[in-house]
């Protein structure tokens, strides 16, 4: 394979409390992760293990305390301009309409307004929101807002797509629809995807490779599974196949311990 799209080498992130410099928290430590060009990689792990931290490092929003980040062989400095980031929380600008939100990235990059508008309209249609361009985010349902976010991210045609539990706030039906849509769009463009989730089903159904993170603090990667299920997949149907069940059992065996550890830690803090 050619140069990987994204490479994290021995990344550690330690947060220091602003009020009290003695209070430190190491979220992740010694993480080495490679995402090939066109590869769909999921990271699963117990809640609070630093999955989002890892994604922020990959996006360039967060400087790792130690370690290196490389994007297509180049060391990353500042924002990762080749990546699109789909956030877990609401990230649309509430003062812009859906269309204007999708246009935003193109506008920031200096695409002419008419051209940006045409592209944004095309993307809204592609995520099934053709007639909703003039709505403000608060006038859209949660699922529609996620679709808008997806269009906003993909409109820039990034080479790397970072997704942070993008569908965790959605109901199960909408979620499956969105997952299939993302898979369809991904299959057409074959971008590198780093997908964060706590939902093992989702991770297996969508990915080429699933990576397991240990419970925090100082979370690291503790396992890796290749998902050798044929594509194209339907996220609902693939869950019935024997290979899926097998993989699920194997990954869960490893993950369960960490989930219990993470849970115990949260109880201790509370």
């Amino acid at each position, binding site marked *: 394979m050619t140069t990987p799209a994204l490479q994290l080498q021995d990344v550690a992130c330690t947060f220091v409390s602003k009020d009290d410099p003695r209070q430190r928290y190491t979220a992740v430590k010694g993480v080495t992760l490679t995402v090939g060009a066109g590869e769909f990689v999921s990271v699963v792990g117990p809640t609070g293990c630093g999955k989002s931290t890892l994604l922020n490092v990959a996006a360039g929003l967060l400087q790792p305390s130690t370690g290196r980040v490389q994007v297509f062989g180049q060391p990353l400095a500042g924002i990762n301009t080749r990546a699109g*980031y789909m956030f877990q929380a609401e990230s649309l600008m509430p003062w812009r309409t859906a269309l204007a939100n999708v246009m935003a990235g193109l506008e920031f990059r200096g695409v002419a307004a008419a051209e940006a508008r045409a592209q944004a309209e095309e993307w809204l249609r592609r995520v099934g929101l053709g007639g909703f361009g003039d709505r403000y985010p608060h006038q859209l349902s949660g699922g529609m807002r996620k679709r808008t976010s997806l269009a906003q991210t993909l409109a820039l045609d990034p080479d790397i797509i970072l997704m942070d539990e993008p569908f965790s706030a959605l109901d199960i039906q909408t979620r499956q629809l969105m997952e299939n849509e993302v898979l369809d769009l991904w299959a057409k463009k074959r971008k590198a995807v780093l997908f964060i989730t706590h939902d093992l089903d989702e991770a297996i159904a969508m990915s080429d490779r699933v990576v397991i993170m240990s419970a925090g603090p100082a979370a690291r990667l503790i396992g890796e599974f290749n998902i050798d299920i044929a594509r194209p997949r339907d996220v609902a149907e693939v869950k019935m196949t024997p290979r899926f069940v097998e993989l699920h059992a194997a990954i869960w065996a490893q993950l369960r311990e960490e989930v219990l550890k993470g849970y115990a830690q949260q109880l201790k803090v509370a």
Partner: protein
Amino acid sequence: MKSPRKLWPWQASLLVAIFVFWHLMTTPGLLPNFMFDNDRQASFFFGEPVKIMARIWAWFVTDADIYRHLLVTLTETLLAFGIGSALGLGAGLWLALSPVASGILEPYIKAANSMPRIILAPIFSVWFGLGIASKVALGVTLVFFIVFFNVYQGVKEVSPVVLANARMLGAGPKQLLRHVYLPSATSWVFSSLHTSVGLAFVGAVVGEYLGSSQGVGYLILQAEGTFDINTVMAGILVLTAFALVLDAAVGKVEKRLMKWQPKAGETERL
């Protein structure tokens, strides 16, 4: 609660009742004296509604000489509002985005805000003369802090996710200011619009009252000099009505500009 439509007859009759009571209590010779030894004293202290209305009628219709004064007061109000808002917006953005500057200036801003700024009016008269400039200056000092604190708050409360998203979409510092901080801050400015327009109006009238040659505040001051209580009351009524009109106008503007903000209980019409 009942709808406002059903309540307005009650509101109107309350107003009529107040005026009838006022009329009965103050008209000389209508009721036997029980408070004052002279039956002209009540009208001397409290004015007579009929004469007040006659005064207002003369101002607006027969003499038509109040428009000049109203125009002056309105000009002062709008100038004070415009300049104060612009300065407050600029200063708020600057200080919110520059921690060092805000750290240094914080005690001074606190001091300037807690100072009873109305007391500056005589100084402004000396500095800027008796024309509209001194009234505008007074209004500006009142409006500035309201807008300043709201903008400051608005910038501080920009959702970090929206901010990170805009950065990932390729927004540079200037674009962040223009497309994220500014819209967020203006929403806070508009939420304080009623207060700041009201204060601009207060600044204008108080400034006129303390020394001027035109404006509604000047009319009141003149009438007070000759113990013409009816004209004073008429001036107060005109100012009140005027303030209500201004407030309604602000409400209209707010509704148009803030349509992206969700309102409680708003349902979707499809």
